[in-house]
């Protein structure tokens, strides 16, 4: 927390580039920071809730991030050169999170979109279960780097309750991995354009090359934007 007040002080004084070295699990770094042109570099391992409620700045982590990276973020950019653990990008409303390595469970739960605000999460490696649960918009891309042919880079219960947005996975996804309300669909030209842009961003961020064999990508999208229509009965009943 002392670290955060130092960071806040530097932002208030107009710093545009902040480099934090030797970070060892400090939480909430950069939370609710708003300056669009602010860049924060973190060397070491930031703690949970990195960049929570972030609205504009770019945070780059040279190391692993922990849970809830970019929690309820509105805009900005978080780039993680290592892994990011559970609940990455919860309720992401805008901006982008790029993770070079893998992420854990519950990635991108309840992301949303509005107008031009289209949040995106790109994970280089794998994710665990509950990917994109309750998703209401935006895009998730899991690249599955290093996953052997025939194995899936994602877990089970993908997109349970999804009612907006899309999840793209490079590698195998079987029907039984999908949650209620999610379905597998083919890639269209729009999807390819979007994927190409996301992958290019990923390549530039980490200085890597990603193979673009579109036949290896699976798209998961909602069955409906109103998943619970027909589930309820409004009959008036009185004593």
């Amino acid at each position: 927390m002392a670290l955060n007040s130092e960071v806040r002080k530097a932002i208030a004084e107009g710093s545009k580039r902040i480099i934090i070295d030797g970070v060892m699990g400090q939480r909430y770094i950069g939370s609710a920071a708003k300056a669009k042109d602010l860049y924060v570099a973190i060397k070491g391992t930031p703690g949970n809730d990195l960049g929570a409620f972030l609205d504009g700045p770019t945070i780059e982590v040279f190391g692993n991030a922990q849970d809830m990276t970019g929690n309820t973020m509105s805009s900005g950019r978080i780039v993680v050169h290592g892994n990011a653990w559970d609940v990455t990008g919860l309720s992401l409303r805008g901006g982008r999170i790029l993770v070079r390595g893998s992420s854990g469970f519950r990635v991108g739960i309840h992301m949303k979109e509005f107008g031009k605000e289209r949040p995106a999460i790109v994970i280089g490696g794998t994710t665990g279960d509950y990917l994109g649960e309750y998703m209401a918009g935006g895009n998730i891309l899991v690249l599955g780097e290093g996953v052997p042919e025939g194995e899936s880079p994602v877990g089970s219960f993908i997109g349970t309750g999804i009612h907006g947005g899309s999840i793209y996975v490079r590698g195998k996804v079987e029907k039984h991995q999908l949650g209620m309300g999610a379905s597998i669909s083919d890639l269209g030209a729009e999807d390819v354009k979007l994927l190409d842009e996301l992958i290019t961003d990923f390549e530039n961020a980490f200085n890597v090359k990603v193979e673009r064999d579109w036949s290896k990508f699976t798209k998961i999208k909602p069955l409906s934007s109103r998943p619970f229509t027909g589930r309820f009965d409004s009959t008036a009943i009185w004593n």
Partner: protein
Amino acid sequence: MSEGDQTAKRKDPESIYRNVIHEKFKPSIDRNLCIKCKRCVKECSFGALEWDDDGIRYKGNCVACQRCVATCPVKAIDIVHLPTQYPPHASYTERVRQAITAQATSGGVLLSSCGTDMPYGMIFDDLILDSAQVTNPSIDPLREEVETRTYVGRRTGKITLSSDGYITGSEATSPIVAMDMPLMIGHISLGAVSYNTQLALLQAAKNLHILAGSGEGGLHSDFFPFAENVIGEVASGRFGVTADYLQRTAAVEIKIGQGAKPGVGGHLPGEKVTELISSSRRIPLGTDALSPYPHHDIYSIEDLQQLIAALKESTEHRVPVGVKIAAVHNVGAIASGVVRAGADFITLDGFRGGTGSSPRVIRDHAGLPIEVATAVVDKRLTAEGLRNRITLIAGGSIRSSADMIKVIALGADVASVCTSALIAMGCQVCQSCHRGVCAWGITTQRPDLVSRLDPAIGAARVTRLYTAWNEELKEVLGAMGIDAVESLVGNRDRLRYFGPNPKIAEVMGVKHVGEGWG
């Protein structure tokens, strides 16, 4: 039966089953008085009335909302309770049979709104207040100051003493917010209610110098001028929760649960997600606004502690951060965990609390009455030495100043109200909010209906109502010989139980009528 009806019957062989769901109410129109102005047809947003060549015809589905009654220029309409009777049965009541019939038809989860109407009985009505006589003189609130100012936030402070022991200064060491009375308007979201309704509520809160909850829909930019009277809610859907929102409001509250639907998420149907709602919640037009059942970053008290800390960091420790929980069986232990997790205030929502839409099975069957929950939490936190750290807000069926006074004596610092504010603006508690066509323009997004509520009039009515309650509070405090409402908080000795079940009194720590002091 006309030929048309017979055709309909052949086409819909199940209609005979549905038809046993009785109409409960019916507008009765005095044909001698009716001037055939057709106003009632326009006013009834439930589509219950239509104009037939020779007059007004009732089509069915009246919910007794009284809108046609209130707007008929010649007072020709009465709503009557229909005499149709089910064969009487004490366990298979009409309600039970109607629910079965409806679900056999729809296969759906039954929805309703408002607080539960189940006849559980109100414990508030079994509690009697004390008054001062002879040995402790009463106070005349017209002549003497009776303090009703109340603070929301963590109760920590620093007192400075002079070398000879006099207090020379005092300051709060955590952020607190002052209100002119121990009452706040609870969380009612833009989405559940109309723009005009939220505007009226916020204006009333400002007039009264109290707080009002934002509900889980964020804060529309038009309402920023009211931000210092708003507790900004952070619910599981995180709708409208931005850095700006958090840094603008007077306090922040994490909503874990709601009394009317403990453990259940929110579901604002796509019909209500109009342009206005879609832009304030930042979701696409016409999609369902779903709030997940739990917060997916809170699976434990430790996780809660983390979100509380994240919010405090995000607001630079300038505003109190609280947690709202539904009153459930283990509420004492949960509240204790919430305080230990760092909450500055706890909002307890009792099982009769209101809702814009909730599954009936939860609304009617889950939770704990606020009277018991408040007393249990106050006792538990006191026993653990935690009570003085936090502000305890209690809501969920506070219907009158008497309820407000009783809930404070049971242990709350602040009473939270919602339904009474809506009743002040015309609501008749018809339990139809979830249908989105409130005839009073409250729980609807339909522009023609929204315009029925004039926000200035609404605000004035709500302001008058709670001003009156605060005057009544002063009367009662004076009669008890208490000069500041703070001294009533948790003062269960000023209550006596006069109800059917003394065990309830024991659980609440309230003496039975007839038992004296000490």
